């Protein structure tokens, strides 16, 4: 009884249970209702296909990951830097923020064709797209976080002769860290999805390209296995970030 309760209390068991239920429902539905493979292929077939086609999938994954990570890093850094800049120059904030909000009101996917024209069909256009999508989230979140500290604390530091930059570095940035990390987390799945969307519209390599080509050839098993690989990759990416976050809680 105690062992059972312990088992239920561990964080992994309920998740595993629901995954098993999901798999059983998936496979069961296919067997029971004789769903044709083009509507919903069995999970076994997808995994099998992913294993037989490893070379192509891995090549595509590497291209997409490169673009997603490149854009993610670029966007996060630029977003954070811009947030600090806007904080230090209030006039700038009044001019830039409405524009940034307007730019953000346009869905990322609407920019994609334009970015392909500007930066070409190669990796650069996807990196730019991802950087824009990730960067805006970071800008808004970081700016919100940077404004959190009490005016009293800022005044105290200033009265001891600290400059604006010093206040940002010593007080505002540490306070803003949770907001920054939240933006980093949101950015992970977004960067993968945006990279894939960009590739679907035009690219030489990548998972999006693979998905687009396979859809055209009605090779739906390849679509499913590419989706599987993309999801797994973003889960690993996300898990890594959570792990780093838990290790580096120096700001709390």
């Amino acid at each position, binding site marked *: 009884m105690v062992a059972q309760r312990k088992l239920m209390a561990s964080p992994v068991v309920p998740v595993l249970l629901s995954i098993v239920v999901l798999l059983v429902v998936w496979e069961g539905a296919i067997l029971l209702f004789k769903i044709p493979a083009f509507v919903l292929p069995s999970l076994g077939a997808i995994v099998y296909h992913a294993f037989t086609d490893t070379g192509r999938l891995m090549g595509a994954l590497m291209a997409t990951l490169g673009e997603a990570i490149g854009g993610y890093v670029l966007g996060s850094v630029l977003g954070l830097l811009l947030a600090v800049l806007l904080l230090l120059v209030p006039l700038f904030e009044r001019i830039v923020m409405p524009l940034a909000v307007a730019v953000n*009101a346009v869905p990322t996917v609407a920019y994609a064709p334009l970015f392909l024209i500007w930066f070409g069909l190669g990796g650069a256009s996807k990196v730019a797209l991802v950087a824009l999508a990730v960067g805006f989230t970071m800008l808004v979140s970081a700016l919100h976080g940077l404004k959190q500290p009490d005016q009293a604390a800022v005044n105290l530091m200033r009265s001891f002769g600290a400059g604006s930059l010093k206040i940002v570095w010593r007080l505002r940035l540490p306070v803003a860290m949770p907001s920054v990390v939240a933006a980093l987390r949101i950015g992970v799945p977004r960067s*993968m999805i945006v990279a894939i969307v960009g590739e679907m519209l035009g690219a030489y390599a990548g998972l999006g390209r693979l998905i687009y080509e396979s859809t055209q050839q009605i090779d739906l098993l390849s679509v499913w296995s590419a989706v599987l690989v993309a999801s797994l990759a973003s889960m690993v990416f996300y898990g890594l970030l959570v792990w780093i976050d838990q290790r580096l809680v120096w700001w709390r």
Partner: protein
Amino acid sequence: MNVFMQRLLCSPALAFVGLALVWELCVHVYAPSPRYLPALSTIAQDAWSVWPQLLGGFGRTLLETVLGFMLGALFGCACGTLFTYSRWMERSVFPLFVVSQTVPVVAFGALIVIWFGNSLLAKVMTAFFLTFFPVTVNTLRGLKSCDPQRIALMRSFGANRLVMFFKLAVPSALPQIMVGFRVAIGLSLIGSVVGEWFGETVGLGVMLMEAMNADQVVRLWVVMFACGVMGALLYGLLTFVERRLVWWRSES
């Protein structure tokens, strides 16, 4: 008069007018290739020449976006409430929700058409898939952050669970839920635009694809502006509702 001038100088509208002027001037002075930057007046002319199609597409995409958002918001609020009051459900199903967000929904565009037919429903489902998650997370967070002292107070006055839910938990969670709504409305627009790429005849997403395939750069800008206007409109409407509904505290 002086106050009026001061307010005008600080208003976001000035930033927009300024940018528009700089844009128009730059294009006339430097005359870049229209492939990279067409003049604003050219874009306006092009929009004027296709306004019936533009208006029709705008209405259709708006309908899909709003329906997808409402469906996602309802489902998200329901799930968030369920997860708050059933720890077991939260621990078993919530991780699956997180996983579902790593799935690039665009990749399923062709499949969604197979599943739901080439109908309004297919686009609404794409939008729904993108919207329910942020609403769920924020509802969960909002309901959980309810002040335990207030719960104890209400309980001591003999309030039953239903009264406590509607009189205490929901009002205190509303600001947070609204944050989720604001994220969701933008994602819903993305979902419906992308959903239209896979077989549809009206909508902004269709116009975007047509313009891209026909290499009409100016038309791309027109569609981008239309998307931006819709995004800003929906966001503004939501902010307005929020101010009315959560007048006591608005997290802006």
